[in-house]
């Protein structure tokens, strides 16, 4: 066993998070141990430097601005190739309506398929596409039938990762145009920590007309959006360029797919 306390233990002592008995023991050790004492002092120095460089008023103003900006971001338009306007109604209420469906995909003839995990089945993970923001009440998009969107309606994507560690989403329109959604470029996103359903940021609205296939993929390793987009294009071509008949993308992991009919 090390003669020194771990850096993390000392850091927790510094912020006052250790239980009283442990704190007394660690503090006593640090008073006689040059290395641990120096480490503790370094935390104080870091905090002092922070306070000297960032006065509380500036910190407070910056955090409050960020809170406001984040709230505004859920209400203001965001321009994307085929999607616009993340908006309020869905964003505001989606967090209190969490209904994660089992992760399923719908094949080309409308049959509900079990979860896809390479060639294996795996339960537990889930995904949800929630529609809201229009005149009608919110609803969860069905996986086994195209979902008609009404004017002004927006969607939001949620996922329950279970053991998966990365998430990505894209859409394909009737012309085979692939739009990476989350993220717009680079590699798939690390899932949010913690159990339960997590919601990808922003609610979005489709523009244009016709069908649009939305695909959400959960994987164990990062996948580039370029590779995912290529897989989507191949699936589109293999389906005879019919977006409603596309098979699941040929990528590892689990995926959910929905078809939305734009107004």
């Amino acid at each position, binding site marked *: 066993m090390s003669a020194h306390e771990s850096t993390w233990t000392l850091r*927790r002592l510094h*912020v*006052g998070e250790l*239980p009283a008995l442990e704190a007394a023991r660690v503090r006593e050790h640090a008073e006689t141990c040059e290395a641990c004492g*120096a480490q503790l002092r*370094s935390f104080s120095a870091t905090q002092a430097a*922070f306070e000297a460089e960032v006065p509380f008023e500036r910190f407070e103003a910056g955090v409050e601005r960020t*809170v406001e900006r*984040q709230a505004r971001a859920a209400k203001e338009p965001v321009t994307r190739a085929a999607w616009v306007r993340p908006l309020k109604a869905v964003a505001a209420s989606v967090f209190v309506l969490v209904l994660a469906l089992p992760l399923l995909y719908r094949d080309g003839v409308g049959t509900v398929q079990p979860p896809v995990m390479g060639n294996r089945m795996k339960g537990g993970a889930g995904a949800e596409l929630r529609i809201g923001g229009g005149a009608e009440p919110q609803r969860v998009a069905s996986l086994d039938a195209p979902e008609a969107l009404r004017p002004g309606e927006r969607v939001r994507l949620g996922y329950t990762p279970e053991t998966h560690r990365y998430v990505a989403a894209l859409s394909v329109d009737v012309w085979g145009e692939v739009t990476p959604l989350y993220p717009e470029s*680079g590699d798939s996103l690390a899932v949010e920590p913690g159990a339960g359903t997590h919601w990808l940021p922003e609610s979005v609205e489709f523009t244009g007309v016709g069908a649009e296939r939305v695909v959400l993929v959960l994987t164990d390793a990062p996948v580039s959006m370029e590779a995912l987009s290529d897989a989507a294009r191949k699936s589109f071509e293999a389906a005879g360029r019919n977006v409603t008949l596309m098979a699941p993308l040929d990528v590892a992991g689990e995926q959910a797919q929905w078809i939305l009919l734009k107004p």
Partner: protein
Amino acid sequence: MTGPTPLALKVVPPRTPEDRRVVLRDLYVKYGGSVRERCRYLLKDASRAEDAMQDVFARALVHGDSFRAEASPLTWLMKIATHHCLNQLRSEGAAWRRWFARDEAARSEGHGGAEAMETRDLVRKLLARVDAETQAAAIHYHVDGMTLEEVAAVLGRSVPTVRKRLEAFAELGGEELNVR
């Protein structure tokens, strides 16, 4: 000498501007330095780090209930800060892979002596070569100095899984990154 402060941070859902200010000041004096240090370590830019730090504390404010329930607010904040910065780099596209390897603009933010600073720098250079979970594990283990058990708890993984990831990471960097 007085005893340590209580275990859990008293973060309450803000009711009035004054309450909110008290909460923010508590966060500022206890955790501001640590969170900013983490953001600077990963983003390597003082201005962007301050923005990221504000995002992290804004999240603590907005998610006051879950944050308050944490046994260790420090752990919650450092986890969120790490996750936020790594995601930010990733969302910026392919350039993020070069970002970690670039160190001329970086300033070591550590205080554990030359050896610890070298380890932190080495860890950062290697981050682009591993998946996101290994990145987080490596940072919490080598930079934060958490034990394997603590890293496993933060990531919601088993100790053997974390050990395996860290051992794979160590293979990239040599003995300095051995897992004990």
